[in-house]
């Protein structure tokens, strides 16, 4: 019955370039389907934060990302039937919505003799010859692919591991070196796995070129983030959730780089001319973790009603800050470079984590830094009913932001996919009252002599 309750709200992107971004999502799905027609290898991959997917691509595997496709299915409200199938298979309905969506699809695919059903959302996902799971950040991201064995019998899963050091442990002598060594060895194992599976050799030059390209794209995506520090904010979450796709999934694609050049130019133009993304920026907020893909238009509404600019989102989806010179100097091995970048992303907020006592550094610590850098008035936490990793640390973040940064938070319950708990009306009423809270804390920050 909740089915019809919330209507799909697509967002009004504020950037012209953000409207182009849909192309990249389509491109990924289409290229996999084309690959299937041409008999080329297809892989399903977790968003790997540039660990392994580039390597697989360099070996000629066409990757699609079920997480991305899950968000897509949710945004067009086509996930429900897949969720139902997953539930019927006996998977708990508390599992990650992306996973349930993908499991439901995999079952459908199997029952259809691996011919993608004609009406599959976005053309569907072509059957893979391998799956690239991830040991980083979330258990679902390997348990889920492992459990797909029931439907994709005999499709091997490779789990690419990434160490998750504690903030304190990060500073222990030797630890960093051990970690980096481990990642490089893991990447080598992945290459060996791929070489055995595909019966061909890695083309080192190609990999190097792709890694170079990815570094460039990520660097540029980061430059765009930097521009968002300006007041008024030249670009908001509504845009970000679209433009993240190219750097998140296709950083090695030259088209992605070109795209960011255009994004950069547009955002820069706005900054130079003092044009805000929303006309009446009164409050600047950060958004905690994954958005309600089914109702992204919510952000437009609160922008319009209350002048809220959502100026920054979770660390997860953003490009890392570029590697410091000393980290990259003289490092030419592409595997080593990937390792350093990944590790950097996972550990760059460790000093902040110790300072604010918010280990693990990922998830919480970035927000404590952003609070000041992006001059934010508030934090919107979106606890998800089906994604635990993105929810585990939200309470801690709320606590510490208020306590250490005098930035208050508001909690809006929901989910990436599942429509059961999100309640727009309730969300509006909470946010409306929260504007007063932000006024109050602004005053407190001023009294405490804080910089924003």
């Amino acid at each position, binding site marked *: 019955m909740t089915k019809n309750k919330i209507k799909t709200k697509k967002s009004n992107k504020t950037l012209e370039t953000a409207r182009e971004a849909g192309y990249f999502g389509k491109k990924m799905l289409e290229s996999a389907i084309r690959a299937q027609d041409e008999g080329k290898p297809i892989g399903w991959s977790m968003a790997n934060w540039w660990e392994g997917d580039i390597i697989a691509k360099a070996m000629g595997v066409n990757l699609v990302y079920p997480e991305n496709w899950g968000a897509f299915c949710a945004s067009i409200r086509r996930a429900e039937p897949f969720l139902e199938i997953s539930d019927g298979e006996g998977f708990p309905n508390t599992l990650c919505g992306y996973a349930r969506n993908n499991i439901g699809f995999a079952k459908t695919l199997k029952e259809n003799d691996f011919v993608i059903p004609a009406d599959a959302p976005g053309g569907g996902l072509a059957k893979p010859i391998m799956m690239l799971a991830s040991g980083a950040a979330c258990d679902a991201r390997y348990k889920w692919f492992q459990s797909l064995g029931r439907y994709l019998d005999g499709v091997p899963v490779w789990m690419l591991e990434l160490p998750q050091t504690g903030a304190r442990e990060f500073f222990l002598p030797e630890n960093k070196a051990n970690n980096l060594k481990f990642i490089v060895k893991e990447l080598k194992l992945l290459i060996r796995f791929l070489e055995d599976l595909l019966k061909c050799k890695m083309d080192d030059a190609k990999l190097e070129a792709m890694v170079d390209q990815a570094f460039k794209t990520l660097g540029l995506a980061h430059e765009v983030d930097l521009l968002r520090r300006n007041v008024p904010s030249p670009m908001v979450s509504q845009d970000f959730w679209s433009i993240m796709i190219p750097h998140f999934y296709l950083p090695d694609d030259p088209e992605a780089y070109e795209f960011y050049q255009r994004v950069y130019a547009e955002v820069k133009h706005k900054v130079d001319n003092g044009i805000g993304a929303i006309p009446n920026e009164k409050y600047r907020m950060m958004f905690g973790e994954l958005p309600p893909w089914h109702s992204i238009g919510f952000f437009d509404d609160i922008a319009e009603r209350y002048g809220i600019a959502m100026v920054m989102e979770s660390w997860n989806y953003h490009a890392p800050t570029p590697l410091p010179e000393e980290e990259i100097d003289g490092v030419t091995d592409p595997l080593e470079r990937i390792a350093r970048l990944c590790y950097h992303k996972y550990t760059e907020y460790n000093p902040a984590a110790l300072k604010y006592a918010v280990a693990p550094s990922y998830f919480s610590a970035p927000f404590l830094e952003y609070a000041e850098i992006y001059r934010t008035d508030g934090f919107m936490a979106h606890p998800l009913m089906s994604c635990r990793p993105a929810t585990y640390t939200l309470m801690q973040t709320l606590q510490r932001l208020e306590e250490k940064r005098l930035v*208050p938070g508001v909690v809006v319950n929901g989910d990436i996919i599942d429509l059961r708990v999100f309640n727009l009306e309730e969300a*509006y009423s*909470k946010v*409306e*009252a929260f504007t*007063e*809270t932000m006024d*109050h*804390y602004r005053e407190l920050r001023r009294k405490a002599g804080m910089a924003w």
Partner: protein
Amino acid sequence: MVIAGLDIGSVFSRAVVMEENAVVSMTLRPTGGNFRKAVAGLWRDIRTMRIDPLDIDVMGACGLGATFIDRPFMKIAELSCLSRGVHFILPDIRSIIEVGNQYSRVVRINADGKVTDSMASEKCAAGSGRILQVIANVLGIGLEEFGPLSEQAGRPAKFTTNCAVFLETEAISRVAEGIPVPDIIGGLHHTLTAKIAGMVKRLKISGDCAMTGGGAMDSGLTRTIESEVGLRLHVPEDFMLASAIGAALIAAERDKAAVAEDAMASLQ
């Protein structure tokens, strides 16, 4: 300037009319499940107090049925109204527990009566004031009687379910088993208090606190909260009207700001 505030709740509808920051008239009536009729009733009440609804310059409203109001008004979030209203009545209070029909909520406010933090119970009647009403119906007594009765409670009854509906059934069987009514009420207060206590703790509230909503009618509940959570509760005199007052005040404020903005715009 004449300002008015309406709070069209699921159980009660209320209206206040204010002038110069003072309440000049107020009314409270059961909503009776029909918002439109309730609103019409409020206008009638106001007229009997010799105020012409047409004289109202600015009107703010909140509550589940606010959309049924047939005159121009500003819709304001319930939470803000409650906070401002309580602040108006009890200026020194910085926190509020509201046990209303739809939710229980706990709010922290600042010296200006603005919300600084809040939490509400889940959308399950077991955590709301509704449960009091449900049990009162079963026992065939009024909510006002809960307080005095629960004072005689010996050992509060234990309930095994969390569902308001099943709790009702359980209460019936407890009565059949011969458990005294005061103990049943005591058990209920205990259950509800446990839910509220969680929220109070999360918002780190201590000391003086206002209590509003229909639940404030039940002195047994307030007493239980005081002793089990360790708060000093203040039930404002017109606690059922707090949100209506808040709605009026906020509407007036926003109207002033809008006028000023218009003036600025015309200057430019």
